[in-house]
């Protein structure tokens, strides 16, 4: 392999792990991340199953190591435009969008947030709280440097506003920064772009975005997050705490035609969240099949059951509005039932990123019928693709849990380093 440098696309937990291992082995790594922060979806979690470890405690040391590692060059707010060449000699063109804040000068003191007049929904917080036009997604995000969202910033929409620049004592804010296209020469590419969740709005029977207290899994996660919008308080839209909660699995499984692997465990985790804050809340968990494989997952399920949750199986399910709160109507074989609840949490299917097909074309790799990137051989080469030198890891290849995503990222490193050079 002539060129030893490696391009990693996506700075989630799989991308970070691959970059660190490749850097440890002495390779130069270009890590390209679409958003302004590292950590991907995992840092949105408060805790991870099955040992309920705090996600930040787990990932933050890796993020910090990433930022201080010599031979890793991190490109944030950057996307891949073009990929040419082959194993050992790829030429990749990337578009690095302007952050409008100098990564070196800024020390993350957040003095520039307060004066900014703009306030819009914060995507990182799933819209549960607002952020300014100059923002970091959540306290503790790394790199701890804000970015200016030109879509909402009034300066980029005609008004001559310099409030953030004036508040900054380090002249870190530079409105003249330009997007730039950069050419990277690499020997191999690791695609770790992760997944996105099905928008439950696409399936009307769940009443998502229609009834007030129907939340998606990620929304509930951010509600429970100690560094999130409500600093961990579980509250309904009207500010009260829910007395009864329904957690619905397999949202979109029928429509998608596959089981997304992690929703059962993630939903069982929510029982611990709820019981921690609301000890006597009544919880019912609606599932069609329990997907809890492996040596530790059933133990977690048994332990969760002892906390007082009734598991209700269903073939079909829908959420109806009542005068007070909602009710979950479910059917199993020929019997059915209806359960009044104050809050509903939906576990939506995992699906490929919206821009997966665009990236597949750029990389010259194929997708499977669901839109996930297609592996070369599902049994013995699940991290390789039809194009030699391009590897796919994590949920970009197939919905899986953090352990398998990290294992796949390490496997890609193994394949790359074993090619020698």
């Amino acid at each position: 392999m002539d060129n030893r440098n490696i391009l990693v696309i996506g700075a989630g937990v799989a991308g970070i792990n691959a970059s660190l291992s490749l850097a440890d082995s002495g390779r130069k790594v270009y890590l390209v991340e679409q958003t302004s922060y590292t950590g991907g979806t995992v840092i949105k979690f408060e805790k991870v199953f099955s040992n309920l470890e705090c996600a930040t405690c787990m990932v933050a040391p890796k993020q910090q190591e990433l930022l201080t590692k010599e031979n890793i060059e991190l490109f944030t707010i950057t996307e891949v435009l073009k990929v040419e060449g082959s194993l050992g000699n790829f030429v990749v063109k990337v578009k690095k969008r302007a952050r409008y804040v100098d990564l070196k000068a800024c020390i993350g003191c957040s003095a520039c947030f307060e004066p900014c007049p703009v306030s819009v929904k914060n995507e990182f917080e799933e819209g549960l709280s607002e952020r300014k036009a100059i923002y970091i997604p959540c306290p503790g995000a790394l790199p701890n440097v804000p970015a200016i969202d030109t879509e909402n910033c009034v300066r980029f929409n005609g008004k001559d506003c310099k409030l953030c620049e004036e508040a900054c004592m380090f002249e870190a804010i530079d409105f003249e920064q330009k997007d730039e296209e950069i050419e990277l020469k690499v020997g191999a590419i690791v695609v770790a772009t992760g997944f996105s969740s099905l928008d439950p709005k696409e399936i009307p029977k769940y009443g998502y975005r229609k009834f007030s207290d129907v939340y998606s899994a990620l929304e509930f996660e951010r509600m429970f997050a100690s560094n999130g919008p409500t600093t961990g308080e579980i509250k309904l839209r009207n500010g009260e705490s829910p007395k009864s909660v329904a957690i619905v699995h397999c949202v979109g499984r029928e429509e998608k035609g596959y089981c997304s692997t992690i929703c059962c465990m993630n939903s069982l985790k929510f029982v611990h969240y709820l019981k921690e804050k609301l000890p006597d809340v009544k919880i019912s968990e609606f599932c069609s099949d329990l997907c809890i494989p492996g040596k530790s997952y059933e133990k977690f399920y048994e332990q969760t059951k002892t906390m007082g949750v009734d598991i209700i199986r269903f073939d079909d399910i829908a959420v109806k509005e009542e005068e007070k709160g909602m009710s979950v109507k479910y059917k199993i074989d020929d019997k059915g039932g209806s359960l009044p609840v104050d809050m509903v949490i939906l576990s939506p299917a995992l699906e490929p990123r919206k821009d997966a097909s665009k990236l597949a074309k750029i990389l010259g790799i194929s997708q499977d019928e669901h839109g996930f990137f297609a592996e070369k051989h599902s049994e013995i080469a699940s991290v390789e693709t039809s194009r030699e030198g391009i590897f796919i890891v994590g949920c970009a290849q197939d919905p899986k849990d953090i352990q398998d995503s990290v294992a796949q990222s390490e496997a890609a490193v193994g394949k790359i380093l074993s090619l020698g050079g």
Partner: protein
Amino acid sequence: MKDEFAPKIVGFLCNWCTYAAADLAGTSKLKMPPSLAVIRVMCSSRVDPVLVMRAFLRGADGVLVAGCHPGDCHYEKGNYYARRRFALLKSVIETLGLDSERLQLSWIGASEGYRFQQVVTEFTDKIKKLGQNPMQKKTSL
């Protein structure tokens, strides 16, 4: 406000979780009483009971040992051992009738800036109610 009792609390914070939570509380500008003197240790299991005892007998109004939640320890099991040592220390102090209320063990994760603020504030209030550590004035100590 000057002569009001300002407690002196020694805090052994574990580098990976609680010290990170303290930093996060800082970056989030969460205000808290200036009573805690932070000492950074790599793991809560580094704190041996006699180190805490020396601070306590030397007159610390309060001693806080804080680390990762059990199961989150960066070194896998450190905090389990720390918990046992702390329980032993507290039992010895309690049996001897010295107010063991002044010793506190708390688990604070890296993203729990608010919890860190809450623990420091509540512990300071508790110590204010207990008053100054009598050991400070005992000449024969």
